[in-house]
């Protein structure tokens, strides 16, 4: 089993750290993992994306032209990556970030209003963990216990007091993701 995932949005949305937590979760699950950021000026507020691969076997290229799953957090990322989801693949988007139509009919599309939920939780920092929860709901590639272990391993110890809040956000994300019709 191999999952090839792109997470794309604005710098500052927690795209890279969400990818990192997903990669750590895969590590805890005993999988081969790779985390490949697009780095550079985009880290200062432009578009940012990261390719994460979780696999039971060796991983060849960390850079891909097609993805099993695309997590799309802003319009420029939708424009760039909608066509690169494999047929029968998954596209997850945040309702707040996307204003255009999703044209593909041969993929499974899910909407998660994570920006709204984060506002409700009065903490915009959990935005990416809500998205991660949504991803794990529709594509359960790692067990929740390993996600929590991965979260713990990827956070510096001084931030471990934030673990319960992040766990709550992941569980909330699992509840609020809906199929896009």
């Amino acid at each position: 089993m191999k999952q090839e995932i792109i997470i794309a949005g604005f710098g500052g949305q927690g795209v890279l750290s969400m990818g990192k937590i997903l990669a750590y979760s895969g590590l805890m699950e005993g999988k081969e993992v790779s985390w490949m950021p697009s780095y550079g000026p985009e880290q200062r507020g432009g578009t940012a994306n990261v390719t994460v691969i979780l696999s039971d076997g060796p991983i060849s290229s960390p850079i891909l032209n097609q993805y099993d799953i695309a997590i799309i957090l802003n319009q420029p990322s939708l424009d760039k990556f909608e066509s690169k989801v494999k047929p029968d693949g998954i596209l997850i988007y945040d309702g707040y970030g996307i204003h255009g139509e999703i044209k593909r009919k041969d993929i499974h599309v899910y909407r998660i209003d994570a920006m709204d939920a984060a506002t409700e939780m009065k903490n915009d920092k959990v935005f990416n963990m809500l998205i991660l929860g949504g991803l794990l709901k529709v594509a359960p590639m790692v067990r929740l216990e390993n996600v929590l272990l991965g979260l713990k391993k990827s956070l510096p110890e001084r931030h471990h007091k934030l673990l319960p809040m992040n766990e709550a956000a992941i569980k909330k994300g699992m509840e609020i993701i809906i199929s896009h019709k």
Partner: protein
Amino acid sequence: MAEELNLMKGNEAVAHAAIRYGTDGYFGYPITPQSEILETLMAEMPWEKTGMVVLQAESEVAAINMIYGGAASGKRVMTSSSSPGISLKQEGISYLAGADLPCLIVNVMRGGPGLGTIQPSQADYFQTVKGGGHGDYRLITLAPSSVQEMADFVSLGFDLAFTYSNPCMILSDGIIGQMMEKVALPPYRKRKTEAEIREESPWAVQGKPKGRRPNIVTSLELDPAIMEENNNRFQAKYKKIEEAEVRYEEFHCEDAEYLLVAFGSAARICQKTVELARLEGIKLGLLRPITLWPFPKEIIKTYAHKVKGMLSVELNAGQMVEDVRLAVNGKIRVEHFGRLGGIVFTPDEILVALKEKIIQHG
């Protein structure tokens, strides 16, 4: 679980491997995309654990000359930089080669020429394997294609450097430096004691005991007859390295009708191209040079008798392809495919290039 699971960037792996190898000193100057090497070393504070020196020099030129000093005293010393910074180090590298000094240099390449971009590139191939600095010298060059190899090549690089008393370079790029993968770090080794260094490197300048002639470490020789002898000695050493230290990896080559030749990050991307091609029924293989100098020319020559054509896939305008063509010597078609300036090709793009440049021509 006996083995600790680590997930880290290639740059971080270099830093951890250097501490564990028993490196005596790191001297460097920050530059993207390799700054995590110095950052990780500073965060780990190895001077408190192993006594390893970590120093941010005032410039790249200062750093490489600190390497010269450390190496002359028989210590295991290393530096790292990215393309523009490596250009600044070239004079020092030539001096190190001219003085038979072992050391490890890491280049995490970025797009050039000039200050260029901070994105990945492999455009320093010529600089690394064809000279870079002045004079008839060679740099042992290792090209890692995974985070694991970034860690492994620190010890391999130092071992080769000390076996042959020659500088060694790890030629990496922004992809391998910045990506995170699983890595098993080597066990801790003790740094060499002064007595061990005296035993192992009797040429080292460590203070002259009574009754021994002074050790002199220099690349300067005003008598051309002696300088020619020195050069002959270098050439004999390079010949030995070429005979003993060629390394490469074959991926689906057994039944291949066409071959990709690629190193480092490009080779990782090409693995996927091989998978895609085989889904279409194209018998494609990949030959990955691990040592760029010495270059694996014999195995390429062997494949020139087995396959119909080769595509040299590089993140540059066509550099290693010249060495592939020399090895193939006109026997079959050899073309190059690359992207430039920090743009990275995707696996499918390479397959299209293979069809256009090689397969269509029979």
